């Protein structure tokens, strides 16, 4: 019985020991397994977080780069606008020098106008005076003709030829010059006359008597046998008949070819949208390549920006190819319009 109990107890002790060992061992394996899992998970998470943050970092770098570029462009644009606005205002809106010149021109013009008006006024005054003088002269002559009998004779000196005077009075001279007035004439002559009806047509100011009559234009007969008028007119009004070279435009074969091409393209395009496969239907994120994959500061430019390798060392005459024929206009602009960094954000 004691033997069985001790064996039993030994068995219990062994059993417990075995259980302990097994439990400890299982615990160890499980722990080792968990540790292994943990490590794996950590590894995956590490890799994933690294990837996300690298992506985020790349995005940040790209935005910062973009903002820097845009600031730079804005500054440059401000400079251009500043210059342009100054120029615009100074040239067109408030051109100081042009204004000054204009005002000077106006004062010069005013001077001219004033002088001319002054001359005109003087001319009118002279005209008035001359008219007055003429009238007086006419009056005097008329009086002289009327009083012709007051002329002095050989025997008796007339009124105007007093012996006490050194030379006869001007009236005397007038009397001597004038023809005696006949009776018939006296009735018709009206002393004043209507001045206004002197200028019946009133379309031009009166011509002054001091203006010399122009010399006659030498009437030389035109010489020679003349062509028939009909012929001359036909020659003069012949319509223009340009040659074919002049009539067609310079670029015509080229232009025609371009028109052809345009029309072809327009015809053959079925629809303008890009064809998207179904698997990419829900994907709207573009793949961001890692920095290692991308080019130096962006993507590799060959094949996208330029596609002709240039090796100046191999050139024959130290000169690049020259475009002799005009290239296709659209392709000339490739890569030369405003930069594509704006498309990133």
């Amino acid at each position, binding site marked *: 019985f004691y033997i069985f109990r001790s064996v039993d107890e030994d068995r219990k002790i062994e059993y417990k020991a075995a259980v302990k060992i097994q439990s400890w061992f299982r615990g160890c394996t499980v722990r080792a397994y968990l540790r292994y899992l943990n490590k794996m998970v950590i590894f995956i998470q590490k890799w994933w977080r690294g990837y996300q943050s690298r992506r985020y970092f790349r995005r940040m770098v790209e935005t910062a780069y973009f903002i820097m570029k845009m600031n730079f462009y804005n500054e440059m644009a401000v400079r251009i606008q500043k210059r342009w606005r100054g120029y615009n205002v100074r040239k067109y809106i408030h051109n100081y020098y042009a204004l000054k010149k204009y005002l000077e021109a*106006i004062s010069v*013009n005013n001077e001219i*106008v*004033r002088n001319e008006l002054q001359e005109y006024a003087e001319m*009118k005054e002279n005209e008035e005076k001359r008219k007055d003088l003429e009238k007086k002269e006419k009056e005097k002559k008329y009086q002289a003709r009327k009083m012709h009998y007051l002329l002095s004779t050989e025997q008796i000196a007339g009124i105007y030829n007093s012996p006490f005077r050194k030379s006869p009075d001007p009236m005397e001279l007038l009397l001597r010059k004038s023809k005696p007035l006949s009776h018939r004439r006296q009735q018709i002559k009206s002393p004043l006359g209507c001045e206004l009806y002197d*200028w*019946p047509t*009133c*379309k031009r100011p009166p011509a002054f008597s001091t203006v010399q009559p122009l010399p006659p234009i030498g009437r030389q007969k035109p010489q020679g046998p003349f062509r028939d008028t009909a012929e001359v007119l036909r020659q003069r009004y012949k319509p223009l008949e340009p040659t074919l070279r002049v009539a067609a435009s310079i670029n015509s074969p080229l232009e025609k070819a371009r028109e052809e091409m345009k029309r072809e393209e327009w015809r053959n395009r079925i629809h303008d949208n890009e064809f998207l496969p179904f698997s990419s239907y829900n994907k709207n994120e573009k793949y961001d390549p890692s920095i290692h994959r991308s080019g130096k500061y962006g993507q590799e430019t060959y094949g996208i920006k330029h596609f002709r390798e240039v090796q100046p060392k191999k050139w024959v005459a130290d000169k690049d190819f020259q475009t002799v024929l005009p290239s296709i206009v659209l392709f000339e602009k490739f890569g030369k319009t405003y930069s594509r960094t704006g498309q990133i954000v």
Partner: protein
Amino acid sequence: NSGVMALLRPLLLDVIPTIQQTAALALGRLANYNDDLAEAVVKGDILPQLVCSLSEQNRFYKKAAAFVLRAVGKHSPQLAQAIVHCGALEMLVICLEDFDPGVKEAASWALGYIARHNSELSQAVVDAGAVPLLVLCIQEPEIALKRIAASTLSDISKHSPELAQTVVDAGAIAHLAQMILNPDAKLKRQVLSALSQIAKHSVDLAELVVEAEIFPVVLTCLKDSDEYVKKNGATLIREIAKHTPELSQLIVNAGGVAAVIDCIGSCRGTVRLPGIMMLGYVAAHSENLSMAVIVSKGIPPLCACLIEEPEDHIKAAAAWALGQVGRHTPEHARAVAVANVLPTLLAMYMDTRSSEDLQMKASILTKKALKNILQKCTYLPALEPLLHDAPPNIMKYIVGQFSKVLPHDSKARRLFVTTGGLKKVQEIKAEPGSLLQEYINTINNCYPEEIVR
């Protein structure tokens, strides 16, 4: 008066033509003399008689009858209306087609007097088809006929743009423009007045008048020896200049400003008024134009007008014109201030403040002119004398200007103190918080405390 109408009336129907003519002439002279007599002529039912017998009579009768109509029509619109009622207009238009120039003259004179009163009567005249015939009359060789026809056209077109347009459509402008060259002074008066009545209504009409190439020629009219020719010429240029800046620019480019300025300088009295207003209109359009006025030496004659003229409305017009010239920029205000005209304006404003209607308008215009010039004036020596005399509402502008300029200019500050301006500013009493007080504070802040006290 003593039953003479009743006696004259049967004489009009007499067999002998001389008696008819003399009776008509007598009636005309009676009606010409007085309103009441003209009314008596109308009441005595004489007009229908005249009108009926007009068509078959000879030219002396027609002349006398047209004289009667003219004498009746000139007194008042009602009498003219009576004439229109009895169908006289058609008769007058028939007279216009007559061969004798005397008849045409009398007929167009009568039409002119009728059309003068108001626009309905003018419309009636136009509806009777008178305008083309008048334009034909203008082309006739006799000067008296031209004069009367031009004055009738002027009376017709002065009422409304449509009437002016009718006159223009009949091709009047070209003939009127040609006649500006005529040496006769009275004809020129009428022609210029007709053109100015046409041009005053709208921009298009003014442009039509300008297109008739009047421009350098009209300036010779401004040098004519006759006062009224100068006045009407200046009126024409004024009516053209007042519409748009482009038209004013045209006038300035043609040297019109110089001519008008000389004209103002050489005349006296109301003849100057349209020239002054023309300068005001030109200067009002834009600052370049007012600079052009200044450059053409426009300010001295305007100042002379302001000082010399006895009449209030001319003074008011000169003040207004100066205000328009000076109100654009400090440069302009300086040009006006240098001519020493601000004290005169101020004196005028204070003078005319306590009077009746016309002077009220003058004082309003002077006040506006002063205000406008002062708001831009930075020429301090001219503002100083004003400080001493000005009333409070002008004072605030003056002090305002000082407060704008003094903080920046040290020499001006020194001058201000030495001429006693600062003392004067201290003496001004102003309510605290008002603009005036702020300005005074600004000025006081420019100086150290001791000087202020």
